[in-house]
């Protein structure tokens, strides 16, 4: 018993345990309540089913949340990512008229990068608080997207572009490979270069890091730039999946899901340590939750309420203080 308790303690030291636990519970619930949730069919050599659906629909969120994790590690926040997603999607589909696929994708990524650099400049050089700084692009971003689309919903029939968000490769949705690639690149950046150390040090104590020779401005700029670039990547997948760009509604409220995914993943909003694996799990959890709620047939008007309730539960599980309260009560009842 004692060894079990100590191994439990050892395991719970890892931050990733809690989002994994939440996900396990959610899937257990699905196993019992939602028939066919785990069923995977092969049609034309492609995998189909709720699980594949979660992965496929979750890719924009996963990619966006990874970028958000870098910004949150700097005690920052980027609430403009939903708008950047809309801008990037609009840009790509607008450029497809008369330009090649690659030019469209490049233009879309460049505009996302510019949005990120703009945010980074406001935060690191002008010293504006991240929430306020990115609020500007949140508001004005959808306006810019509307200018690009001329107020219309643009559509495309470019097969190459549609493949990004709808195509299948080796049985799995192509977008899943993009998300995996993004994760691996950022993970390597974190663990195989000094970027992770500099980012965490700057996020935890900017002054000390600066005096130790780290350039905080460069770190801020790159984190926000990557965040913008990844939001644009998400925008391309999102618009490709729908074959259209809607300046007003594309990625609406996605920024909040992205922030939530990072927090569920164990990264503190106060900056410092950040967890990429946890963030991905957090994003998949949120997408799974959404899919579960739809499969359950919860009336649309209650969906947000149910979601909020589950999120509160997850946050409580994560809170050390809450867990301590639980164990404390247990001790009292046993004694």
């Amino acid at each position, binding site marked *: 018993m004692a060894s079990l308790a100590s191994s439990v303690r050892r395991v719970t030291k890892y931050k990733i345990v809690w989002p994994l636990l939440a996900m396990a519970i959610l899937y257990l619930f699905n196993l019992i309540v939602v028939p066919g949730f785990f069923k995977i069919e092969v049609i034309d050599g492609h995998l189909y089913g709720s699980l594949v659906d979660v992965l496929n629909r979750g890719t924009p969120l996963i990619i966006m949340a990874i970028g958000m994790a870098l910004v949150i590690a700097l005690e920052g926040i980027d609430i403009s990512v939903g708008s950047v997603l809309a801008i990037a999607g609009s840009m790509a589909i607008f450029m497809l008229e008369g330009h090649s696929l690659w030019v469209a994708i490049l233009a879309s990524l460049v505009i996302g990068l510019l949005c990120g650099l703009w945010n980074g400049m406001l935060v690191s050089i002008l010293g504006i608080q991240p929430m306020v700084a990115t609020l500007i692009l949140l508001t004005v971003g959808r306006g810019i997207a509307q200018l690009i689309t001329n107020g219309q919903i643009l559509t495309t029939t470019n097969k190459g572009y549609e493949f990004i968000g709808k195509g299948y490769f080796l049985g799995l949705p192509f977008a899943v490979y993009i998300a995996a690639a993004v994760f691996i690149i950022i993970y390597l950046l974190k663990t195989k*270069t*000094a970027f992770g150390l500099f980012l965490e040090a700057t996020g935890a104590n900017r002054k000390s890091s600066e005096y130790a020779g*780290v350039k905080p401005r460069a770190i801020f700029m790159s984190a926000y730039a990557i965040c913008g670039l990844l939001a644009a990547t998400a925008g391309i997948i999102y618009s490709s999946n729908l074959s259209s760009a809607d300046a007003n509604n594309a990625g609406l409220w996605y920024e909040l899901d992205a922030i939530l995914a990072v927090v569920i993943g164990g990264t503190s909003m106060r900056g410092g340590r950040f967890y990429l694996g946890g963030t991905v799990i957090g994003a998949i959890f949120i997408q799974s939750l959404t899919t579960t709620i739809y499969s359950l047939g919860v009336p649309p008007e209650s969906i947000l309420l149910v979601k909020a309730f589950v999120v509160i539960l997850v946050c409580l599980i994560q809170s050390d203080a809450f867990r301590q309260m639980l164990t404390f009560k247990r001790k009292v009842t046993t004694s």
Partner: protein
Amino acid sequence: MSTKILLQLEGVSKEFPGVKALSGVDLCLRKGEIHALMGENGAGKSTLIKVMTGVYKRDSGVMKLNGKEIQPKSPLEAQQLGISTVYQEVNLCPNLSVAENIFIGRQPRKWGMIDWETMNRRSEELLARLDLYIDVKQQLSMYSVAIQQMVAIARAVDISSGILILDEPTSSLDTNEVKQLFSLMKKLREEGMGILFVTHFLDQVYEVTDRITVLRNGTLVGEYKTEELSRTQLVSHMIGREWNPDELSGEKSNKTASAEQFLRANGLSKKGSINPFDLTIRKGEVLGLAGLLGSGRTEIARLIFGIDKSDSGVLELGEEKIAAMSPQKAIKYGFGFCPEDRKVEGIVGELTIRENIILALQAKNGLFSYIQTKKQKEIAQEYIELLKVKTPGTEQRIDNLSGGNQQKVILARWLATQPRLLILDEPTRGIDVGSKTEIRKLIFNLAASGISILIISAELEELVNCCDRIVVLRDRVQIGEIAGSDMNENRIMQMIAEGAGVYGKSGVIGA
């Protein structure tokens, strides 16, 4: 002196993962006494205080308040029991008024609203008891750190019912302010209060305390009456070996500074911070900066390291002339800087010891020449052993270490970059006698190995002991320089007091 016991601790133990911070410690605080709690950094003083104030829960042992056992679970609960504490760093809200700070969380009310009049009046009365007459309606940040400290004490005294814990309250005060604080402490003792006083200054212990409890490595060494314990005995108890005051001076005479010039500051200045100054640091030389708080000591260090940008003047490094310095550049040239405020400007609290040590070296190497984790661990371990940092391993969070050990980690951070010049701003502030001796020894060894050192210290005795040369500052002006046998505390104090002969001349430059 009354012998009634206010607070008694018996066999208190507290363990952290991998560290036994306290084992079986006793402490007895009596009515109407000032009781010193002494020990090296890492001896367990802070932990013991945190157990008493409810920040930590003790693992075992008994704590009795007026004979009744207590178990405070939070600082608030300890406060309600009548144990109030003033910490080393001022724990107040700088953006609120003095009166608000004193009554925060317990504002007097009238018809459900805050009764400002009563609050301000009572604050004035309270501060008057401390001989402090200031405008209590002003924002706290308007006042000096010393006054803020007094406000914190006023608040603690008002909350307390008999027990006051002062955790190194004097480290940011000047001599007069310390005197003022001591007369207040004596007054409170007359009123029957039991005061637990933590300090690193031996003189202060002998000036004001009645009893001394000494801790070492988390265990109790003993409780002594101050008058019956000599200073040498006290220091021996604290560091656990015989202490020899001549140990340092012996080593110093062995080394000779080379004549080779390393760095020259030519007319460097920054408006409102420091008037133009000229400095030369030779290779392997220990150069001291002496002066009172606000005399421009730290400002010189910040200009040389490039944290502040100079308005005029150049730094000459061999043939090179550098007008605009920055920390990154300074590090490339082989400078290292241990800042005065370790917590805010030195350590990165959330990261491990390894990451803290490696940070500057990695920044010097750049983003892409990443030092592998295994290599990082080796480097960290090497310096942990070299500097005798007390820790179970390289992967501990640095904020779990005591102040002295944190300082050693910051030193290790710079040593890992193979520096040519180390700027040490108050390297031994808030550090116990044993670590102080170790760090001073280290300074000699570094200088002997050819590293130049610029050291700032408020303790003149430390400068006289460590330095080859001392530059004296006053009111942001460089007023003189002494070296060799001229260096003694009296001479420096005299220079500061009289402004030396050069003061007039420099004054003209400054004007």
